[in-house]
């Protein structure tokens, strides 16, 4: 399932790698990234295209929102409701 996550974040050392690292570590594939200058020179907007391999993208959004460099997270597009992890892990 493909999703687009848009983040407002501080333009600060480590912020991009910290965010992308979290997304990949939590089991998502990043398929596209773009960045743009934010409202001030200290801020940026990052748009991440990601593939949710059975994990809840809403939970991911809350995990990303916990990062102190990130001021807001929105899921701009959702193809279908995300599957619950307990369903995807049934084994």
């Amino acid at each position: 399932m493909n999703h687009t996550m848009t983040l407002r974040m501080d333009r600060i050392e480590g912020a991009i790698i910290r965010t992308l690292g979290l997304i990949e570590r939590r089991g998502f594939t990043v398929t596209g990234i773009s960045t743009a200058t934010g409202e001030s020179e200290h801020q940026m907007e990052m748009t991440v295209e990601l593939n949710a391999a059975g994990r809840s993208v809403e939970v991911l959004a809350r995990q990303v929102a916990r990062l102190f460099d990130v001021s807001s997270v929105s899921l701009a597009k959702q193809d279908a409701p995300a599957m619950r992890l307990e369903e995807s892990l049934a084994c």
Partner: protein
Amino acid sequence: MKGAELVIKSLEREGVEFIFGYPGGAIMPVYDALVDSTMKHVLVRHEQGAVLAADGYARSTGRVGVCMATSGPGATNLVTGIANAYLDSVPIVAITGQVPTSLMGTDAFQEVDIFGMTMPIVKHSFLVRRVEDIPSAIGEAFRIASEGRPGPVLVDLPKDITNAEASLAPVWQAPVEAPVQPDTVEVENAAELIRGAARPLLYAGGGIVIADAVEAFRTYAESSGIPVVATLKGLGAVSTRHENFIGMLGMHGNQGANKVVQNSDLLICVGARFDDRATGRLDGFAPRAKVVHLDADPAEISKLRHADAALLGDLSSSLNALAAPGDIAPWQTWCQDRRTEHAWRYDAPGDGVYVPDMLRKLTDAAENYVVTCDVGQHQMWVAQHCHFDRPDQHLTSAGLGTMGYGIPAGIGAKLAKPDATVITVTGDGSIMMNIQELATLKRYGIPLKILLVDNSSLGLVRQWQELFHQERYSEVDLSDNPDFVEVARSFGIPGFRIDRRDQVDDAIQRLLNADGPIIAHVCIDPKTNVWPLVPPGETNDVMLEEQTA
């Protein structure tokens, strides 16, 4: 004022009492400034000892633990302890020296990218590139480490920054944030679920003590009469002696506790995160239960188990908002019957030391105690058989399972609570992971009471190889261990050895009555296993009971 002095002033401003650390090249300016400070520095003998002692201090006090190391290997030696604090939500500030900014990125001597290396295991981190930013970085590090769901924060300080002069010493003021209250709609949803439940259960996690919500939890547990099970870190949320406490759930939990979980129709999960060691196979965990989840961390809601109602924010406020259940008397009786049916037994055959019985007697005999433990079979026996009246009496590496945690955590706990009797229960595998900290015990005269359970093997791994790998034993034999009593003696710490059941009572008295640090070396049968056990990949319905040869 130099950057290093700003570091020290900032730490003093936070009310830091102890710094656990180890000096080296890149952190030398800070150690130089430390000479003039009133804060006490505890020189450990390996940086992992520093971060784990800071962890033990933090868990014992609820305050931020502080550790410090130099760049390169000093910093990398902190990594395991930082991960330990991350997985168990412990507030730690780890301060590392870094090579000068002009050398960063040149593969300089003792240079590693500790900022990048620790990103997945910190709550947040700072790489300070301007001397003026030191007070705000350290101030924010303390705030972030302790607010909401706590965790470790790293502050990496290049040497040229700590050596630089700041023209003005800025003062950093922490913003004051009101605790988040649970959503009223979710409170009502939870109330409906609780009122409609016939078999509700309180599932207590480590978040209760972290959020300082033990009293609120007990008040609700008492007034509602809802039976309680606990995770490894939730033990003591209600006293383990309380009649409504059914036991620890999970892989090495009590079978009665697992039965009540599997039969409940509503789990009220308080500060727990559905860890796989607690749930067993997730799709078979409490299959008929709806879930009310109380937590400080929004990212835990519906991460592993869907929450039918989620109360986020301050745990005490959420607990105070919980509704009373209806008539659950038949369920209470059923749970009590399971508690009785699966009460631990201590009538093991033979005359060798039966560790579960020794641990039970130890906490029966001790007063005002804290038990820290290492990782392995003894850790599960501590959880099963020691009594805990509060969660902060039990310091255990739950999430990461860090062998070597016990002694450093004991050091931190004893310094935090000088009046408490602090006992470290360790194993012959685990003690060797941080045995150098016996020197720290001796240097500072820290009267830690160490109970070393020695089965001459990596017991829990050996047990799994026996049960699940067709007795193909692979690298678990430790029968060539050193003489631990002699090792202790060489550090200047007295020790004694027992291997028979009739020596246990005297050993406990000797341990508890010692004035200084002491080791009781308890030798047991290498074939001893921990029971009961949920096999990996099974649901908690499948518990293996003791198998006698």
